[in-house]
């Protein structure tokens, strides 16, 4: 009896000890579900499964932000762009770039560990848009990330030691690469691929988060003979693009992952007539199986590289007096799409920037109404198109304020002269766009806009000569944070668009800011490090002279 009691106590003690140690390093499925409700940590891409990038922290607010000062900066020892969103767990920051993953003490800025990842340099031949990585996922004590050579690796969050590594069975010589931040949903790591400029056939992969074992693959484009293959001319589907390079969002109640698919390939549409399913679509699928529950296409037969991968932000919106659970996308094509999460029904479609390729949304056929510009472009005539291939906005994620009911979007104000000559045959692995383009750049090339999700209209906007390509983040302190390609990290009044605070970081900002808390102090963290295709092509030479070199910056109120 006594022994039993003793044994029972020992078991209880060991359970408690295990409980405590795992609680200290858990990030269980439940922790991830509650990420948007726990402002101390940032455990998911998007600062919550709903990807709102909204924090309830308000120590840093419209009154106190003038006292925001840098606490430390950490060098990534690298000259490439720093596009990643940091993760934060219990005051420790996890940050990635193309070949490094690091854990940094968020209070002191001291490095805890750093891992350098090797990949074959030849893979850079099929990297369209900058030598970058977009961030990691965290789950049960593991930091999980992708590398450019289509490998997903899980590291021990305490030590950086490799736990598992899974290589997607595709050949990078055929155009495939990975820059995506993984999404862990219901115990499954979901990753996507880039390469729609190189004639890939896009897909999503699901891996077991504990072992890395491949659970499923879901192609975004049907194989020959499969349903949907009739929406492609000849054998054009085989090199049809439909990449999946931006992280989706997850609704744990519906157990649905939402993920945007990219443009059809090549950009020249004249050899792939048809709707080109499921490019430029929003997919909703079950994370355990990859089974697609609905797929809603926004741009059938897209000639303009209006790559539909942008962030998918969830919210509860009141539409015609009814509360609707929606997922929203500010699309490169210039429309702000509001869809019902359960069904994929288009509830609201309004433009959020000027456009001339479409004159509105046809709610009966659920298709954009095309203008002469689109018809002429498809017919091989030279046209001026708005927005350009860079889009009304690009991949850099927007944020949503449930308090102001506004979306904060770094938009582009860019057009292009476009001509699609008679098409050539696409070859997987070769960058063959088959269009001739010249950019049209007005004096102000972008805005930070506060957009009403149901009208697309801006409550306020700030013009920028060089467009911003950083994400936005907003807080209960009434602030929107974002960064400029020229390096300024700014805090803006979320209600009226006044810039309240500014800090010059050493390089351009193309990452996503986050905020978190440790021991009663609110911190704001952002990466600085210019790179990415927009800075290297479209914004050149306006950003010539912005120094390269990536650093991670953390700020707090003076005296805290």
């Amino acid at each position, binding site marked *: 009896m006594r022994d039993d009691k003793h044994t029972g106590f020992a078991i209880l003690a060991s359970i408690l000890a295990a409980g405590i140690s795992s609680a200290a390093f858990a990030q269980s499925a439940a922790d991830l579900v509650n990420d948007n409700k726990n402002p101390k940590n940032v455990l998911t891409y998007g600062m919550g499964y709903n990807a709102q990038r909204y924090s309830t922290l308000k120590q840093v607010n419209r009154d106190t932000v003038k006292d925001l000062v840098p606490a430390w900066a950490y060098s990534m020892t690298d*000259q490439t762009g720093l596009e990643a969103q940091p993760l934060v767990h219990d005051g420790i920051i996890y940050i990635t770039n193309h070949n490094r993953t690091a854990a940094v003490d968020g209070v002191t800025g001291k490095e805890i560990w750093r891992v350098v990842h090797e990949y074959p340099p030849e893979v*850079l*031949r099929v990297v369209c848009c900058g030598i970058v990585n977009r961030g990691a996922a965290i789950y049960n004590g593991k930091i999980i990330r992708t590398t450019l050579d289509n490998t997903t690796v899980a590291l021990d969050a305490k030590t950086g030691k490799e736990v598992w590594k899974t290589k997607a069975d595709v050949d990078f010589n055929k155009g495939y690469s990975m820059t995506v931040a993984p999404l862990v949903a219901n115990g499954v790591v979901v990753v996507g691929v880039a390469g729609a400029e190189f004639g890939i056939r896009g897909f999503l992969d699901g891996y077991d988060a504990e072992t890395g074992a491949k659970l499923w693959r879901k192609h975004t484009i049907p194989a020959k003979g499969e349903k949907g293959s009739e929406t492609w001319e000849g054998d054009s589907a085989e090199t049809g693009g439909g990449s999946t390079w931006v992280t989706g969002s997850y609704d744990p109640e519906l157990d649905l992952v939402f993920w945007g698919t990219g443009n059809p390939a090549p950009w020249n549409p004249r050899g792939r007539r048809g709707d080109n399913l499921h490019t430029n679509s929003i997919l909703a699928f079950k994370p355990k199986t990859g089974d697609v529950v609905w797929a809603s296409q926004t741009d059938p037969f897209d000639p303009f590289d209006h790559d539909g991968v942008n962030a998918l932000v969830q919210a509860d919106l009141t539409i015609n007096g009814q509360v609707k659970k929606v997922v929203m996308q500010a699309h490169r094509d210039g429309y702000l799409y509001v869809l019902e999460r359960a069904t994929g029904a288009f509830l609201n479609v309004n433009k959020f920037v000027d456009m001339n390729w479409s004159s509105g949304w046809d709610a009966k056929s659920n298709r954009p109404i095309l203008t002469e510009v689109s018809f002429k472009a498809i017919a091989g005539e030279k046209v001026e198109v708005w927005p350009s291939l860079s889009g009304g906005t690009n991949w850099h994620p927007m944020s949503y304020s449930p308090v102001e009911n506004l979306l904060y979007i770094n938009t582009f104000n860019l057009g292009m002269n476009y001509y699609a000559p008679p098409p050539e045959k696409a070859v997987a692995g070769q960058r063959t766009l088959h269009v001739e383009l010249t950019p049209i750049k007005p004096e102000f090339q972008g805005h930070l806009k506060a957009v009403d999700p149901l009208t697309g209209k801006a409550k306020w906007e700030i013009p920028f000569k060089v467009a911003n390509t950083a994400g936005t983040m907003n807080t209960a302190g009434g602030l929107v944070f974002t960064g400029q390609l020229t390096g300024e990290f700014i805090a803006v009044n979320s209600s009226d668009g006044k810039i309240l605070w500014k800090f010059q970081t050493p390089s351009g900002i193309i990452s996503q800011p986050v905020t978190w808390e440790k021991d009663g102090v609110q911190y704001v963290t952002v990466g600085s490090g210019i790179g990415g295709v927009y*800075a*290297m*092509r479209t914004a*050149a030479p306006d950003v010539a002279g912005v120094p390269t070199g990536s650093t991670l910056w953390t700020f707090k109120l003076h005296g805290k």
Partner: protein
Amino acid sequence: MKRLCVAGLLLCAGSLFAVGARAQDQADLAKAGFKIYDNNCAQCHGDRLVGSGITFDLRRLKADERPRFENSVLNGKNQMPPWRNVLKPADLDAIWAYIRANANE
């Protein structure tokens, strides 16, 4: 005298034609080079060779720096991948012609 003059004119016209043809060849080569550059190089080195200072400005390459150019393209350099076995010698000729046609000096 007359014959000489005619012969001279012919000679003169002939060499002018040859110079013109060579220039035309170079222009065609540069045009082909633009296409190869636009597909493979522009995403890092900028539209029409105009970059943002993040990568090397190819317009700085001088007439005698073809070996330097070729070494970087074939073997890679810093963040640049090696293009050996992908870009052919004729492609290199074309890209070089395009760069030289737009070079600073």
